[in-house]
């Protein structure tokens, strides 16, 4: 009693009631899911972003116990989806990465935005990605790639896309 599970990229994993560690640490240390990067550990950089029940969140701020009974999709599962593949291709085409550490987080969030289907002005796209930091400062190409991937959803009236 009290034990539970977390579905990670389609595989059900058991967790206990004393699992106070952050989801990001559990994914990396216990499941060797090193595609989840950990940067700041306080929700500011977005490198550890995963989809929790389909919504992008910084996994460094999710206590593992709070993920019990929920679906976690890392960049691995996201890339296997049609939308995730489209976003990854846009990032590759725009050379929107240097060291690549921040890329999984960006791709997860942009894939979510694509699936959400709401039109975004450039200002709104910037705000949506404000939880992601690129220390190589490749923001220009990242924003162009995100706008390419979002297609008609991006590039609304408040400026150039």
């Amino acid at each position: 009693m009290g034990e539970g599970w977390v579905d990670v990229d389609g595989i059900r994993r058991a967790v206990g009631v004393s699992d106070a560690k952050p989801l990001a640490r559990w994914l990396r240390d216990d499941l060797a899911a090193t595609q989840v990067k950990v940067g700041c550990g306080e929700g500011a950089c977005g490198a550890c972003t995963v989809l929790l029940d389909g919504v992008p969140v910084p996994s460094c701020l999710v206590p593992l116990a709070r993920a019990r009974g929920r679906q976690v999709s890392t960049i691995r599962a996201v890339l296997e989806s049609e939308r995730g593949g489209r976003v990854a291709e846009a990032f590759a085409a725009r050379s929107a990465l240097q060291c690549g550490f921040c890329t999984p987080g960006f791709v997860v969030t942009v894939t979510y935005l694509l699936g959400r289907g709401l039109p975004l002005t450039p200002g709104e796209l910037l705000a949506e990605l404000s939880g992601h930091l690129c220390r190589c400062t490749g923001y220009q190409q990242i924003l162009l790639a995100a706008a390419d991937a979002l297609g008609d959803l991006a590039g609304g009236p408040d400026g150039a896309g």
Partner: protein
Amino acid sequence: MTGSAADGPLLATLARTAEATRWHRPGSLTEAAALMARGATPVGGGTLVMSEAFDDVPGPYLDLRGVIPNGWHGDRVGAMTTLSALLQMTEGRWPAIAEAVRATANPGVRRLATIGGTIAARLAGCDLAAPLAAYGALVISVGADGAACETPFIEFWCGARGPCLITEVVLGPPRPGAYRRYGGRCGPAPALAGVAGVAGAGGIELWAGAVADRPLRLTGRPLADGDMREDLRCSARHRLRLVRAFIAEVTSVLLEYPGG
């Protein structure tokens, strides 16, 4: 395999460690209140518990999902409402609150953090405090004895209180409002100073946030350096300058409303 007498202290230590990291999932508010009375830490969104930016929060922990409501309940907002949902709920009708939510952290954190957790944490740089005070919000809470209590937000924030669970928040009547803040840099950062204004029949209600250990009511009150807190990120004098600039800006925004 059997344990020896020498294993006793070790097993006791292990048991204490396991309890200290345990996550309780109460089935009711009464059970949650009882666990809290026994020392469990209530967890709303969990962002403060996990963040390395804050001190370790002692366990055991109390997972409030399913016990505390979220979304609208009549004119009340459930305390487990995420800031992301709160933004959608307040846009247009409580503009000062919506602007403060939009200034809080980043979209990913706002999808986890809750209004109840944000109020309970009472962080100095909190953006929500000033607009909630300006709208005259009420906090509904349950004490460790299970008794419900309705407290004006500003009293709840400022008052010494025993352990309690915030269950709902009444935002106050929807009115034209505005919020301006400065965090020291472009992008998500805790507020150094913020001013919320709400237009009502009696004029504009102005409150400053993040400048002291509590939101400060500004309406009809001269300001001085001594009112402002000083820390490594910002001097009291600079905070005062920011507040004065924001008062002018918020007031001018509200005067542009029809009937302002």
